[in-house]
């Protein structure tokens, strides 16, 4: 029989205001096993903890029940207190009489009655508690970063800076991501390439960082500290270690009519290509869908002109298996498709473009060498209409668009409008907005400057219809302040398209067993207090894969994710959670139910020899739980038809004892 001590906390007036704490401690004195019961103003204070330690020694307590706040708050505190008193920390049970009692009841009688019942349940459970010892697992001191945009780059640099090896897997031929496609960055207007490319070079030169470009993650096994990852290196038909990036092949390639994805299809590239001048790694890649040599064996010019002999038409996809201790997801975002937004005539006119396309149109390395020209006739546009919130902030049942605010559009539109007015004072620039959302350091000042100093015409209202007519785009819009409908003859219409997570995010989340929200953004472990950790241990989040973010926010989150990874990799061993499932092999019938429901892949089946009553041996298939992977969710204990699965610390008999105590 246990010797149980009960400690009822007032939590100031939080609990004592609605629960008669004296009555609770008195009532619980008579429960089986209870040898000591008291109450105190703040059990979590140093004085309160000392009270527990003293009572353990004085009354030889073997179990502790604390009636206080949610175990999420102070279970860890009281476990440490128990350990300090010489008890096993898992001999502590918390009865939540604050969140589940005083905060939800108004009446003292009801609150007190329920507090006593919850206390009784905790006493019944602690009577069946057994000391538990957490297991340990080793840590592979290397990290994997999935995605090579600014988020992935910053995370990798910060982890490498702490002395750990990092691999970046990037699906495109170069790292750099969306930021490499931008022209200028708000609110300081420094050129994106000027601040990004030094970081890309840092990555390339860092001895601790390896880049797997044109590659993807195809399989993830294992658990925190011990992930086994398969990386598929797509065949680029160029030997990466030999190619010097001289570009002779690109120049000579006769197949020059391939839409250039880096410029969003606004110009063409050759079949063998280097995405942009500062690409890292600066290695050519052959597009197998465009190359004549690969399609029908007729050409081979690039191999002839390559002085280094780097071209290899026989290259195959390669699968590499690597071990990592931590995985950082940095898969980023894309603008949504404008196909469904017929009212803006995106499909009808080349002069209706998205904001990302506008970035390329104003970039010196873009299709117009930085001159703002209409894509249709290469003429200088005079009247430009920017439309905000295209596909953002839509109703959940709308067929097109997203429910959330894409967050970055207000600022980049202000930037586009300001830069246009600055460079081309002969232009008239309209911005149609629903709300201008500019929270951020120097952000609102930036937007006001666009209006006050650069004369951008901000109109509170929305564009309803764009009709191409001759060389003009007829824009019909509302001005809600003037209470007028406007008709503008525009030369160029720029749509601030909503952003969405990259398409690779969902299959990756499945591989990682990391959770996502309904919009396919990765979910963080806690929206405020653990924003860069996935609920899946060892998986961390960096950048826009977790939610819409601008560059300053992405970089800070990338650094935060890196610091979490470093904290994990700095450990030699990881202490697990001892409250894990285990199977009673004698009862297990090998049905695989538990294996199927386990969300973490912690259960495998092994063939084991058992001695039968007649002294013969028999091999049976039984479940085996890997305690390092098990998160203690309890799915398997419910699924098991023979009752062989049990959860340590939350055993079936403990739960039943709690239920009995409540119903008594």
């Amino acid at each position: 029989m246990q010797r149980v001590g009960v400690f009822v906390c007032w939590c100031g007036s939080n609990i004592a205001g609605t629960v008669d704490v004296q009555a609770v401690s008195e009532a619980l004195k008579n429960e089986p096993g209870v040898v000591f019961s008291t109450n105190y103003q703040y059990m979590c204070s140093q004085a309160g903890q000392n009270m527990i330690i003293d009572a353990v020694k004085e009354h030889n307590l073997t179990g502790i029940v604390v009636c206080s706040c949610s175990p999420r708050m102070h279970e860890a505190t009281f476990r440490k207190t128990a350990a300090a008193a010489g008890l096993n920390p898992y001999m502590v049970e918390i009865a939540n009489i604050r969140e589940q009692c005083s905060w939800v009841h108004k009446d003292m009688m009801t609150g007190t009655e329920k507090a006593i019942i919850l206390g009784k349940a905790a006493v019944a459970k602690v009577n069946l508690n057994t000391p538990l010892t957490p297991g340990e697992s080793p840590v592979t001191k290397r990290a994997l970063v999935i995605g090579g945009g600014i988020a992935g780059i910053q995370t990798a640099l910060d982890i490498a800076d702490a002395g750990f090896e990092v691999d970046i897997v990037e699906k495109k031929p170069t790292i750099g991501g969306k930021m490499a496609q931008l022209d200028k960055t708000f609110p300081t207007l420094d050129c994106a390439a000027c601040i990004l490319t030094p970081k890309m070079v840092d990555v390339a030169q860092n001895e601790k960082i390896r880049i797997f470009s044109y590659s993807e993650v195809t399989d993830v096994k294992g658990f925190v500290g011990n992930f086994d990852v398969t990386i598929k290196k797509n065949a680029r038909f160029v030997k990466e270690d030999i190619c010097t990036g001289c570009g002779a092949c690109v120049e000579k390639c006769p197949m020059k009519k391939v839409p250039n994805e880096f410029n969003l299809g606004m110009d063409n590239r050759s079949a063998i290509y280097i995405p942009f001048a500062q690409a890292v790694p600066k290695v050519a890649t052959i597009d197998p869908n465009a190359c004549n040599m690969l399609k029908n064996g007729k050409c081979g010019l690039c191999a002839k002109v390559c002085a280094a002999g780097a071209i290899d038409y026989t290259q195959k996809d390669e699968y590499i298996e690597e071990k990592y201790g931590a995985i950082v997801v940095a898969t980023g975002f894309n603008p949504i498709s404008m196909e469904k937004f017929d009212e803006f005539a995106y499909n009808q006119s080349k002069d209706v473009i998205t904001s990302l396309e506008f970035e390329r149109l104003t970039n010196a390395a873009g299709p117009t060498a930085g001159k703002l020209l209409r894509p249709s006739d290469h003429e200088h546009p005079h009247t430009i209409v920017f439309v905000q919130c295209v596909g953002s902030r839509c109703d959940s049942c709308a067929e097109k668009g997203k429910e959330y605010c894409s967050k970055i559009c207000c600022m980049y539109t202000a930037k586009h409008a300001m830069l246009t007015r600055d460079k081309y004072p002969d232009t008239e620039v309209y911005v149609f907005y629903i709300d201008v959302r500019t929270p951020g350091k120097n952000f609102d000042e930036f937007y006001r400057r666009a209006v006050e100093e650069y004369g951008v015409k901000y109109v509170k209202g929305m564009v309803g219809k764009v009709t191409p007519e001759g060389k003009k785009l007829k824009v019909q819009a509302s001005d809600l302040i003037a209470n007028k409908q406007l008709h503008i003859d525009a030369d160029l219409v720029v749509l601030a398209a909503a952003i969405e997570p990259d398409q690779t995010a969902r299959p990756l989340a499945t591989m990682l067993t990391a959770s996502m929200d309904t919009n396919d953004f990765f979910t963080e472990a806690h929206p405020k207090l653990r924003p860069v950790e996935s609920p899946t241990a060892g998986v961390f989040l960096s950048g826009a894969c977790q939610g819409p973010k601008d560059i300053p926010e992405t970089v800070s989150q990338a650094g935060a994710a890196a610091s979490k990874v470093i904290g994990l990799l700095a450990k030699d061993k990881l202490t697990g959670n001892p409250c894990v499932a285990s199977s009673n092999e004698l009862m297990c019938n090998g049905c695989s139910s538990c294996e199927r429901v386990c969300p973490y892949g912690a259960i495998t089946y092994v063939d084991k020899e058992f001695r039968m009553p007649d002294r013969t041996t028999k091999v049976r298939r039984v479940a085996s739980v890997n305690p390092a992977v098990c998160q203690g969710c309890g799915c398997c204990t419910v699924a098991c038809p023979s009752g062989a699965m049990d959860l340590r610390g939350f055993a079936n008999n403990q739960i039943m004892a709690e239920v009995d105590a409540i119903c008594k």
Partner: protein
Amino acid sequence: MHKTYLQEEIIRMSGVNPSKCMRCGKCSASCPAYDEMEYHPHQFVNMVESGDIEPLLKSESLYKCLSCFACIERCPRGVEPAKLVEAVRLTAIRKQGANHMTANDVPALLDDEMPQQAIVSAFRKYSK
């Protein structure tokens, strides 16, 4: 906020929840009859939401709406302003106790230039 009987009737009849509106004005930006209307689509939504319905009942705007449903099609929040206009219109018609026109009266008033959609809309407006 307490809703008036009239306001609740119109909301119930139309099935529209005007508080879903985020005041973007895309309805009024899409409206082909905008310049004909005293109260514009976004004002309809706002006035029903705030219970200011009497002026709408008296307004000619009720009969200027073409029922083209462009506002319904384009509203990003799924508010459906044209349904509100129709509900207010029905309230006005029912209030006066009688139809002003029967379906049989309509053909005589048609001319060749009238768009098909306006005819369909007229039947809906007047033949209740």
